[in-house]
């Protein structure tokens, strides 16, 4: 099991990468364009032009930025609240990424590499956040209890 410090660092880096991807999609689309696919093709154009690219009138990528920023904050913060909030946010992000990937594959019939990149980042963030939460939640409690026990002795 990696130390919590390592897990928080990995989560922070992944969240920063996610902010980069989501910001790129948002900026390009707000300029009226569509994200360029690195290997050519027009999957991003198709996905960006579909009616599913907006949620209540707001670009889905904006929700992505918010999610990644929350994950970055939870990686920077210590304690149980940060651990649980990080896991909950990653769960929301992962669940919505699964739904968006389903839309790309079976409804829109097009795959956008930038969306796939975000989905992969969110999956990794869920794994890291889960390791952190399940491995270290209550750590202060345990060490506190151990200290109290030592005092008694």
């Amino acid at each position, binding site marked *: 099991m990696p130390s919590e410090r390592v897990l928080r660092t990995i989560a922070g880096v992944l969240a920063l990468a996610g902010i980069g991807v989501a910001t790129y999609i948002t900026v390009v689309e707000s300029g009226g364009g569509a994200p360029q696919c690195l290997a050519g093709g027009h999957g991003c*154009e198709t996905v960006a032009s*579909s*009616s*599913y690219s907006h949620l209540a009138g707001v670009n889905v990528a904006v929700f992505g930025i918010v999610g990644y920023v929350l994950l970055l904050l939870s990686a920077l913060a210590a304690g149980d609240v940060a651990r649980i909030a990080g896991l909950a946010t990653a769960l929301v992000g992962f669940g*919505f990424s699964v739904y968006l990937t389903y839309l790309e594959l079976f*409804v829109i019939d097009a795959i956008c590499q930038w969306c796939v990149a975000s989905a992969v980042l969110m999956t990794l963030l869920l794994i890291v956040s889960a390791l952190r939460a399940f491995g270290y939640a209550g750590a202060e409690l345990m060490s506190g209890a151990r200290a109290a026990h030592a005092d008694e002795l």
Partner: protein
Amino acid sequence: MDRRRLGQIASGAAFLAVCAVAVLIVVSLAGGGSGGDTDLEDVAVVREQLRGIPQHGTVLGDPNAQVKVIEFADLQCPVCRNFSTQIAPDLIAQLVRPGTASYELRQWTVIGDPPHTQSAEAAMAALAASEQGRYWNYVELFYRNQGDEESGYVTDAFLTAIAKGAGVPDIGKWNRDRRSSKWDRILARSDSEAADLGFAGTPSFLVEGPGGKRTLAAPTLDDIEGAVRAVE
């Protein structure tokens, strides 16, 4: 905070996370695309046909092209549909995509008794899509899902499904735009232009270029190519 309390909070957070995902999906399905486009024919075909070609309002292709091919058509018209599915793909690929000619489709409502309510509803829905750069996607997808003329299939639900399938980004704005009174003037102008040009039915074509004008009724691709060469 003891371990038990921590477990309760974690469970609550996980439950909230699941609820949040459910809410996001519901909002996406309600506001973004209801999935209605999955029932439509040829969504991918239309997308592929128009991919990468610029759209300016009702004009497809380079708006500064020397030659302009202007079609006067009614979305309910089955002959227009046949033109759209059988001839327009080659016209777009051979003349519009390379920039030889631009292609405009003017809504000329002729089907049904005046005021041609169903055709006008369809025309205004397509024109509203032009406000978001999806006019041609709307027109082509409409034709590929056209019902029997005046059978009542042109409902709000049908028009909305076409809008979603055509990739109109903001359905709320499209819904407001299609109710705009400015389309009445545009439809009236098409009427008078068609009358001035002596058109008798849809689809009719005006081909304009530096070399003059040609008018055509329900032409073949050869007819249009000939007219384009003549006015170039």
